[in-house]
């Protein structure tokens, strides 16, 4: 199982849940994670496909080929706002 943190509009699209728990086998990559999310939450999946939502692993934006390991800190990041500047 991996836990994925949600923020902003992705949290809203997941029914205001702050986290998702997904079962994922060893040796899986970010792109596999994206497929699992796409199946469960197609609207988030679409944003992930369009790269409007990015995946971070251990607080860095992750390439789709990065391997996800047990204990990794994973999050879905919608477009940053930064402040009303």
């Amino acid at each position: 199982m991996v836990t994925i943190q949600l923020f902003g509009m992705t949290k809203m699209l997941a029914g205001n849940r702050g986290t998702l728990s997904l079962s994922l086998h060893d040796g899986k990559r970010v792109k596999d994670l994206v497929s699992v999310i796409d199946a469960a939450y197609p609207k988030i999946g679409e944003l992930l496909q369009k790269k409007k939502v990015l995946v971070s692993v251990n607080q860095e934006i992750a390439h789709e080929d990065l391997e996800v390991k047990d204990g990794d800190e994973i999050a879905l990041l919608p477009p940053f706002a930064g402040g009303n500047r």
Partner: protein
Amino acid sequence: MSLEQVTKADRPATDDDAMLVRVQREDFSIDEELTRVRRRSKRIGGIATFLGTARDRSKGKDVDGITFEHYEGMAQKKLREIRERAIKDFGVIEVLVLHRYGEITIGENIVLIIAAAEHRAEAFRACQWAIDELKQITPIWKLEHTPEGEVWVEEHP
């Protein structure tokens, strides 16, 4: 400002460093943050500051208030990186980066960058780069409260 009262020797450098990069709910005083930066060196001659505040309009819509959400941990990490790169790449003496989260009323402070240098040119360059970079890489999200409802703002549609 009393430069003599509080010197670097009076407090561990690590405490100071932590205070120079913060994501916090509370409002802040620009004078207090400037004092924090200025006591780092008497060589400072030019200080460029950027203060972002909550406007009452956004892209033609009325805005009643804003809520900021941040990714605890990663947001701080990115702001620390911005401070360190600004100091290194622009040759400035000190940089402070501060962002609020939570509910923000129209007119209130949102974000503060302070870049202090010997001369003004590099202070301006570091300050402007830091706020541009903050907007690009910091995991902070903005929910605008408008008369028509709440909208998560996408800066890069």
